């Protein structure tokens, strides 16, 4: 291969299609569901389930090259350019699906994911429940337990999960599922942590409620309580046995395996961030252009206005984030280890769009701050990208460990 920035036809087609979806299906109801927090965006969810899932075939010929994961990133960018919260509310397996795909057996993939491709029926969701009140970035501190009941061949889960994205839909709409992280042996530390598929509606999994948030308000961020929640034995993803602590190298592998889901998800979350940032930046550029303000790329430092300098920096920052994201995605397509690059992309994109959207509000003055426009919403939505799926600091930690060649016990 060779360094190239030429997207394939298939990627161009996907971008055009999802941009149209964003314009026609998402933007018109963006404000409505930001205000009607905790209300199911019915028209969007139904439209997606009935029509949006089936993208018209690409004009690309069979066998023509595709951009692989980069195309997935482009899709996420376009849809989050539309509305990041509605994107998170799409009836898809989401992160739960990533976990099943990454760690599940072919039977498990068949069992849990088929319903998402079925014709008809009603919208369903997948979700991942990791975070607890006292275990956020430090996922190894998870307190939720899973005990095997040999008599019934069931796992019995107990604990409380918070900040579960799509957790309402995934726990309630029959056919969906929540992947719950729990420990089978607290004394084993991170080696004891396993993930379990809990189907929607399983008795013992209770929806406590959804959070009221700064942004992405149309996304259901749920608290779920597991109370003697019983699931079949074969709903465990991966292996049941806990590697002993003294065999340290292998002990880490199970947990690291679970964490590897993030290598695939972080580029997509970074692409989502880029989408929100681009929404704000595009809007500001268009709005200012209507008022006669256009960046003069050939102006000297002393001829540029402060606003033009801001706009140049914002565009460069966004593009740097996008390219880092695409690089991490490209490595995933090629089957290359990409933890470092995925964390770089996530850290860069999260911070870049946080700043870009904040700057966008500033550049439009009181109009930017007003709820008459969506810019203030994009700023509120953008901030989550620097927090979920690994905070800025967790990703810095991962990058630092990689470039310093330090283990997690040396650089804590």
């Amino acid at each position, binding site marked *: *291969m*060779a*360094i*190239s*920035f*030429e*997207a*394939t036809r298939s*990627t161009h087609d996907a971008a055009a299609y999802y941009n149209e979806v964003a314009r026609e299906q998402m933007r018109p109801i963006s404000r409505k569901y930001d205000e009607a927090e905790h209300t199911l965006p019915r028209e969007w969810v139904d439209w997606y389930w009935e029509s949006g899932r089936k993208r018209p075939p690409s004009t690309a010929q069979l066998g023509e*090259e*595709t*951009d692989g994961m*980069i195309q997935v990133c482009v899709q996420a960018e376009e849809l989050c350019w539309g509305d990041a919260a509605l994107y998170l509310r799409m009836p898809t397996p989401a992160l739960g699906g990533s976990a099943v795909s990454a760690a599940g057996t072919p039977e498990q993939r068949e069992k849990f994911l088929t319903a998402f491709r079925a014709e008809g029926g009603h919208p369903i969701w997948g979700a991942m429940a990791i975070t607890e009140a006292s275990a956020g970035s430090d996922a190894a501190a998870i307190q939720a337990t899973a005990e095997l009941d040999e008599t019934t061949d069931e796992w019995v889960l107990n604990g409380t999960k918070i900040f579960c994205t799509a957790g309402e839909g995934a726990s309630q709409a029959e056919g969906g599922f929540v992947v719950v992280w729990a420990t089978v042996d607290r004394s084993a530390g991170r080696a004891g942590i396993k993930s379990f598929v809990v189907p929607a509606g399983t008795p013992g999994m209770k929806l406590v409620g959804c959070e009221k948030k700064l942004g992405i308000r149309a996304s259901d961020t749920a608290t779920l309580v597991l109370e003697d929640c019983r699931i079949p034995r074969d709903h465990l993803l991966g292996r049941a046995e806990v590697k002993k602590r003294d065999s340290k190298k292998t002990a880490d592998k199970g947990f690291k395996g679970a964490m590897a889901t993030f290598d695939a998800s972080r580029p997509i979350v970074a692409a989502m961030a880029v989408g929100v940032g681009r929404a704000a930046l595009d809007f500001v550029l268009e709005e200012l252009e209507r008022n006669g303000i256009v960046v003069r*790329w*050939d*102006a*000297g*430092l*002393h*001829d540029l206005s402060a606003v033009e300098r801001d706009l*140049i*920096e914002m*565009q*460069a*920052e966004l*593009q*740097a*984030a996008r*390219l*880092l994201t*695409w*690089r991490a995605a*490209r490595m995933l397509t090629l089957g290359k280890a990409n933890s470092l*690059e995925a964390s*770089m992309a996530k*850290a*860069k994109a999260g911070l870049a769009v946080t700043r870009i959207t904040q700057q966008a509000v500033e550049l439009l003055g009181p109009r930017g701050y007003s709820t008459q426009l969506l810019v203030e919403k994009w700023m509120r939505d953008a901030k989550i990208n620097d927090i979920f799926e690994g905070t800025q*600091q967790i990703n*810095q*930690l991962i*990058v*630092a*460990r990689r*470039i*310093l060649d*330090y283990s997690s016990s*040396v*650089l*804590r």
Partner: protein
Amino acid sequence: MIDFEPSEEQQLIIDTVRGFAEAEIRQSGRDADEAGKLPEAAIAQAHELGLVSNSLPEAHGGGGERSAVTAALVAEELAWGDLAIALGTLSPSLLALPLADYGTAAQQAEWLPRFSGPSFVAASLAITEPRHDSNPFRPTTNARRDGADYLLSGAKCLVPWQDSDTPVLVTALDGDTPQAFLVARNAAGLSATPDRYMGIRALPTAQLTLEDVRVPADARLGGEAGCDLRAIVSRGRVGPASMAVGVARAALEGARDYAKQREAFGSPIATKQAIAFRLADMAIEIDGARLLAWEAAWKLDQGDDATREATMAYDQARRVSLAVTDGAVQVLGGHGYIRDYLPEMHLRNARGFACFEALTLV
């Protein structure tokens, strides 16, 4: 298809240049800075790698392998070794590439072959002007028709000025379009005063004064057709952008190695998040800046107007290289401030990217 891996051929070039930079430039960079003199032997050796002549037309003895992306890769590796030596090594690009792109047949035939000859031939491009609002797109240096000739008047600075018998390429406003002119170094009315800067001290540079310097009409680059100064400036933004990335990478590596070995409060300072996170940020920003430079270079290779991409890349790279080299000084603390270590030189060099436009071309 979007891809971020150099081709096999490019990787070979990267490896070769990196090996050369490590063996021949890294060590001598500091001495050269102190002495204010380029190591001629290293530059002669680099010439044998054909880093510039490879991209010149075969008809004039070059390798015919023109690629801005490859040139960007080379620029980063050389600058990782040492910025001043990198600029000196690649100075032939300043005249040879514009000649290859816009020169008339006669201009090419006269000057291009010597850049692919057995020995190194330096070159100079005079774009930057000694004023706070110097803008490469709008030179205040003026080219006035006088019969069959042009009379050039104005002032230039930051002109790489190694010994050479090639003409200096001077940009000037010709009517209302900026153009470039081949001016003999000994032309009447042209005076060159050596100048020194905070950084790149090993690279000879000159401030030029032009007082009614008379050049024939066929000294205009491209003759009647002229040249596209926009594209030259874009090439002159991507090259320095890649070099800024190289300088930043060198600074990060130095800071990383120091932080792993320097102990405080009972453990290496790299094990503390205050240091480790700063290094992580530096690494992220460097990679982002590099990809912007690559994209701009790729755009140039497509033959497109790359003004926007090149400006973003240059803008980002100079911001990043300054922040990273400053971070490196900070990580080394007091040691970062003294000249026994490299970070202070990296910082001095990095600040220069504020005005290093067109100090090298891709």
